[in-house]
């Protein structure tokens, strides 16, 4: 057996257990080095120089890009390092638009945090930030080059995690900037609006496009009836704003808070997800019977739909014609919740920036040109609105959603986590729906945080199904590559954001641990619900007897127009 190797961090021996870089070894000692460009999900870049450490001979190393060596002795906090770090921060701040009080990311900004941490009490250099060069061409995100510190996190996320590559560095030296090819509007590039770049951005340079004002205006207008729906993934992330642990389901508090904010009716997108499960299972069973257009590929994720349209248009035929739960529910709401003499304004609270684009797609406009969803706000935006309204989530009492869409199954709630849609559909497809059968079904391979999951399953009728589940578009690309190489799949689920909607581009503080706890939160809720598969949702069944009779195709399905 090989002896354990040690390196010395600030004089303390630390075991090296296969860490790829010193940064990870140092973190084990309880020292958190400052970083901008280091992300565990991304390749090593070594650009920001904040994680610099010093060895005994005074050599400097970037901890993120230097592998640990046995016997090496480094210091993490010397006078020289402190001076350099301050210098780097001052230089970054000199190139940064420092309008912090009016920034969307005020108080959730890594640059701000590190400036505070290193006691930056003045910047010796004149400010040379681009003044307000804001790119506003995407329905989902806004880019402000004046706040960009060129760490490249967004570029690597877009290329490595999402395989989209809409943006990259352009030009060089002092002229360098983040740009699309030829500075084209984002809407004309491969951008799918997933918002993972905004998640990766350590400053407020990339943010979700805010629709807050639009929503407040509607709420304050007495001749407008405001109806809101909240997606499953929001409930396990929002509580964190008031210190409620990540992953704890605060749906009741959210419904109560939305009513306090002034929404006239409050609903849960899970209801829409239950309709989606029924429609998608129906569609899958039909295709399976005919043996045509298999595999069926899920259609809930609007960023995935854009990716498919832009990169794999030939696969659009395999994509389920089901609208996303948000859009299914929106068309039901538009049909049923109109009130005489009032204009209906429908808001969706989503963990997602791509939904902002979906909501304005021409396929989801009514005959009169009006949108089915009038505004989409992200979890982050809802957090801002709650703060503005002074509503303390931890001090109010929980409330249920409004009638008549007042039930949701556990199958619908888990739509927010990777593998959830597959599990929900499987629950519907199998005949034995006993508690133990459903429990078994949760162990066939669809759960877990891996980006790519492939498993097989035999139904009661002896039909063998091969299922692929991918989250993160680079993983999706791998899965589609297997499909194109002739591998057989029956169901493919794709969510654009790694981990699924719980780690969506509109969620606060997305990182690997949070994906896991939030996913677990949704599974916990599912386990606690007595209704666990969509068919047993009585409110949905009632809707089929009422509104949806013979109108399923018109209201619940969509054929995306060829671009």
């Amino acid at each position: 057996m090989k002896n354990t190797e040690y390196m010395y961090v600030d004089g303390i021996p630390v075991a090296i257990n296969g860490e790829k870089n010193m940064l990870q070894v140092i973190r084990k000692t309880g020292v958190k080095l400052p970083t901008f460009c280091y992300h565990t999900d991304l390749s090593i870049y070594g650009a920001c120089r904040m994680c610099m450490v010093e060895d005994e001979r005074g050599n400097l190393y970037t901890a993120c890009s230097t592998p640990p060596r046995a016997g090496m002795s480094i210091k993490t906090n010397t006078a020289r390092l402190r001076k350099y770090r301050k210098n780097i921060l001052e230089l970054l701040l000199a190139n940064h638009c420092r309008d912090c009080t009016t920034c969307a990311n005020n108080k959730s900004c890594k640059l701000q945090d590190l400036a505070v941490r290193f006691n930056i009490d003045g910047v010796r250099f004149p400010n040379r930030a681009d003044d307000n060069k804001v790119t506003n061409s995407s329905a989902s995100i806004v880019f402000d080059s004046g706040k960009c510190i060129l760490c490249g996190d967004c570029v690597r996320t877009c290329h490595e995690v999402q395989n989209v590559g809409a943006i990259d560095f352009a030009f060089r030296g002092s002229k360098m900037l983040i740009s699309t090819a030829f500075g084209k509007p984002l809407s004309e590039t491969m951008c799918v609006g997933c918002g993972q770049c905004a998640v990766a951005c350590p400053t407020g340079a990339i943010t979700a496009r805010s629709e807050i004002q639009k929503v407040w205006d509607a709420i304050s207008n007495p001749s407008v009836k405001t109806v809101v729906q909240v997606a499953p993934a929001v409930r396990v992330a929002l509580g964190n704003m008031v210190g409620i642990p990540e992953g704890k389901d605060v749906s009741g508090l959210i419904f109560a808070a939305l009513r306090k904010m002034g929404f006239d009716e409050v609903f849960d997108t899970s209801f829409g997800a239950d309709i989606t499960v029924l429609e998608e299972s129906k569609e899958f069973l039909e295709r399976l019977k005919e043996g045509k257009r298999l595999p069926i590929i899920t259609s809930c994720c609007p960023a995935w739909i854009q990716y498919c349209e832009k990169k794999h248009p030939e696969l659009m035929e395999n994509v389920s014609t089901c609208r996303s739960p948000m859009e299914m529910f929106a068309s039901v709401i538009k049909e049923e919740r109109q009130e005489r003499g009032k204009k209906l304004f429908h808001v969706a609270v989503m963990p997602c920036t791509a939904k902002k684009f979906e909501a304005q797609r021409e396929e989801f406009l009514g005959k009169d040109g009006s949108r089915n969803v009038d505004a989409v706000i992200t979890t982050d935006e809802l957090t801002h609105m709650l703060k503005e309204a002074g509503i303390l989530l931890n001090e109010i009492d929980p409330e249920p959603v409004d009638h008549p869409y007042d039930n949701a199954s556990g199958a619908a709630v888990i739509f927010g986590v990777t593998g959830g849609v597959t599990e929900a559909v499987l629950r519907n497809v199998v005949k034995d729906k006993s508690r133990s059968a459903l429990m078994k079904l949760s162990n066939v391979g669809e759960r877990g945080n891996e980006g790519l999951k492939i498993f097989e399953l035999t139904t009661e009728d002896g039909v063998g199904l091969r299922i692929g589940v991918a989250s993160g578009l680079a993983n999706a690309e791998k899965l589609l590559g297997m499909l194109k190489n002739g591998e057989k799949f029956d169901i493919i689920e794709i969510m654009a954001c790694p981990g699924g909607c719980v780690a969506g581009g509109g969620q606060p503080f997305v990182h690997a641990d949070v994906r896991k706890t939030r996913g677990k939160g949704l599974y916990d809720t599912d386990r606690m619900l007595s209704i666990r598969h969509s068919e047993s949702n009585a409110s949905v069944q009632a809707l089929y007897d009422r509104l949806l009779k013979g109108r399923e195709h018109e209201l619940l399905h969509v054929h995306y127009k060829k671009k």
Partner: protein
Amino acid sequence: MPEAFDYSIVDEALAKCGAKQSSIIAILQTIQEHYHYLPEEVFPYLAAKLDMSEARIYSVATFYENFSLEKKGKYVIKFCDGTACHVRGSVPILERVRSELGVTAQKKTTDDQLFTIETVSCLGACGLAPVMTVNDEVHPAMTPDKAMEVIYSLKVKEDAR
């Protein structure tokens, strides 16, 4: 986008340099050799052929000073402004040529798309200073009059066509 861009030059470049991402600089150079600049149309085409994002190719093309994204004239005239050429009087030549052709340091190409006037830092022919090149053909020991003579003879040749 023009109706039909002829991609045969791009295909030749791909065949010559190898259709792989690591050859991107050589591919762009080969394309630029033909067009004297990199037409916008080649970017999406290359992106698809090399399974590489357009933004990344744009990143490479804007990083290197040598790549141009602006359309150039039929004759690309480079004036050396390295130390040797500079002290032997490259600036007056450049000023005269620019004023007679109506171009500037920013607007480098004449309106008739015939001439593009550029400066380079050193052509490595200091013994011949001041040096001018016309589409890589070297003209040594220039003066303002000699430079204009070369340009006028090209203009006369073109007008006769």
